[in-house]
């Protein structure tokens, strides 16, 4: 088989890459509601899914969309929805349901500017905290932040894998700029992909406990129709899946669910650390901002400054350990974000004691390499 047959170089828009990756990852159900700047994902899915025997449906709203996705996933089909800020807000309750009931699903949030309806066609990174804390109660969620079209492709596939593997909702936060960016992507051959399916229950029906706490943080899922006849609920439940408010039963279950990502850091964590070993000025950036930061850090180094870049790809759970070691030598940490300051608080917490500088932009424009470079220069000058 020729190399070209294995990997196909394609010029793809970020949103299209996301859709293609989802299909490649085994997604066979998409439900969504049109919203700028994510709509191309739905459009592409509408074309792709029927060809692979999947189902595309445009629902009446975003709530219905995530509901349908969860329904499909309960049915055993990998499912996804895509939206943008306002729609993402609407999905939060059901995302919480997916967390509590441990239903795999992938939600793409192509972030756009501003609170409320904001700037639908302009970029921002305003949803990063919503992705972590958007739902009520304690949440457990994975958020991935690709910085390129190629990474949209790979992280979308990874999103499905993680979701299936850990039975958590996985949010892929895409900057509007990348979503609408057309880049060349090396699309791997399907057979070369590592695709992970959730564990299916195969133990005897009589004794099966859908939420067993037995050391394995991720219990196998019962497939409807296979005879398990289990109950799925958003209420706190015992190992049998039925509602309970007994603290003796609730505590270990919450501990398992809320702690399972922490215990699977090896699977979850993903970051990029550039020139961090000796970095005195550490830039922590993600998404499109990281691309600007990468150039800024390179320019700073070229100018003799000991600058480094830490780029979380898995934003949530936050790669604390990795950042802490990346920031070991840092005297200052700079957090440029296309928001009024969100991830900086998490960085400040992790890098406690190290001064944190912020570079924020909420005017619908991207942060440029020059801005970051300038800030690095300024920080260096102040030392």
């Amino acid at each position, binding site marked *: 088989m020729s190399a070209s047959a294995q990997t196909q170089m394609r010029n793809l828009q970020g949103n299209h890459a996301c859709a293609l990756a989802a299909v490649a990852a085994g997604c066979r159900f998409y439900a969504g509601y049109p919203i700028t700047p994510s709509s191309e994902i739905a459009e592409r899915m509408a074309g792709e899914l029927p060809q692979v025997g999947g189902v595309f449906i445009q*629902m*009446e709203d975003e*709530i219905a969309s995530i509901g349908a996705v969860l329904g499909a996933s*309960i049915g055993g089909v990998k499912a996804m929805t895509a939206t943008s800020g306002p729609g993402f807000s609407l999905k939060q309750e059901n995302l919480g349901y997916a967390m509590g009931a441990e239903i795999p699903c992938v939600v793409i949030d192509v972030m756009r500017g501003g609170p409320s309806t904001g700037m639908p066609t302009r970029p921002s990174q305003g949803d990063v905290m919503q992705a972590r804390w958007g739902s009520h109660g304690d949440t457990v969620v994975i958020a991935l932040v690709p910085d390129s079209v190629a990474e949209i492709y790979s992280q979308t596939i990874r999103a499905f894998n993680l979701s299936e593997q850990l039975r958590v909702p996985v949010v892929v936060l895409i900057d509007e700029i990348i979503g609408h960016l057309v880049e060349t992507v090396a699309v791997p051959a399907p057979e070369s992909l590592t695709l992970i399916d959730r564990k299916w229950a195969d133990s005897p029906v009589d004794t099966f406990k859908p939420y067993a706490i037995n050391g394995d943080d991720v219990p196998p899922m019962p497939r409807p129709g296979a005879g*398990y006849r289990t109950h*799925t609920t958003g209420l706190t439940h015992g190992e049998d899946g039925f509602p309970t408010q007994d603290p003796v039963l609730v505590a270990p279950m919450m501990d398992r669910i809320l702690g399972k990502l922490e215990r699977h850091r090896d699977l979850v964590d993903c970051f990029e650390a550039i020139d961090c070993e000796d970095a005195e000025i550490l830039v922590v950036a993600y998404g499109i901002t990281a691309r600007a930061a990468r150039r800024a850090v390179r320019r700073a180094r070229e100018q003799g400054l000991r600058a480094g870049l830490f780029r979380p790809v898995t934003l949530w759970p936050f790669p604390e350990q990795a950042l802490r070691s990346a920031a070991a030598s840092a005297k200052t940490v700079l957090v440029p974000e296309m928001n009024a300051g969100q991830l900086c608080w998490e960085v400040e917490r992790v890098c406690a004691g190290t001064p944190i500088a912020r570079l924020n932009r909420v005017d619908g424009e991207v942060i440029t390499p020059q801005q970051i470079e300038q800030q690095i220069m300024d920080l260096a000058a102040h030392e």
Partner: protein
Amino acid sequence: MSSAEHSDFEIRDYLRTDLFPHFMCPGCGHGIALRALLWALHELGISMDKLALVSGIGCSGRTAAYVDTNTMHVTHGRPLAFATGLKLARPDLEVVVITGDGDCLAIGGNHLIHACRRNLDLTCVMLNNEVYGMTGGQVSPTTSNDRFTTTTPLGNHEPVFDACELAAAAGASLVGREITLQTPSLKDLFRAALSHRGFSFVEVISDCTEIFGRKNDLGNSTEMILKQKSAIRPESYGNVVDQPFRPGNWSTGILARNERPEYGTNYREHIAAKLAVAVKGHR
């Protein structure tokens, strides 16, 4: 109407008996409705392995858990959305939604009308007790006028939804209503709904005795369930006596039926046809 005898229906074969007694209040009509549903499923020979019950939030939402099948107790107002995904993903499953008047018509109203419009092969069972029982008795879209609830302390002045008219207008291809008192009729209506290819909507007049009944002085459980008769007055009973004897005018039985393409089948056939054309055209 079915005249099949009942004797081979053993409801406990269909229940998660270890969860009993259930949590519903004395006299709550939901249990009766659930029995009729299971009876209909039994008569149709639908395997509990192939059934999925999707329910929302509220007293109605809690009923599904008592059935020994694939049960999903989802978010408030969203069971139809979940069921839509489930049915589309798994056409092999018989998907039934159990919802309440608030769940279905208020918070879930949008989902209802679109589910009706699509005509996906779902059966939606709306248990109408005219009140938000689980939250302590607030007004719902079906609360009759002048009824007292905790949020209508002076009596309800809001216009009321006729759920069946709503569903029919939205395009549900089978719409029916029945009262719990008429269990066999309710069973037969469920049978019709379950057998129907397309979206079927069944409104069950179910009594909330402990909260709504008490607040409105509607009598004890027996009186309330007997009064259901007063609430239904199919047109055919009109002028039977020289003056109407029932204050209500709820029709019962199958109220609307149309044969439209079922969403899922239509989707697959439509796509297969288009893809075939595309491939042909490509050649």
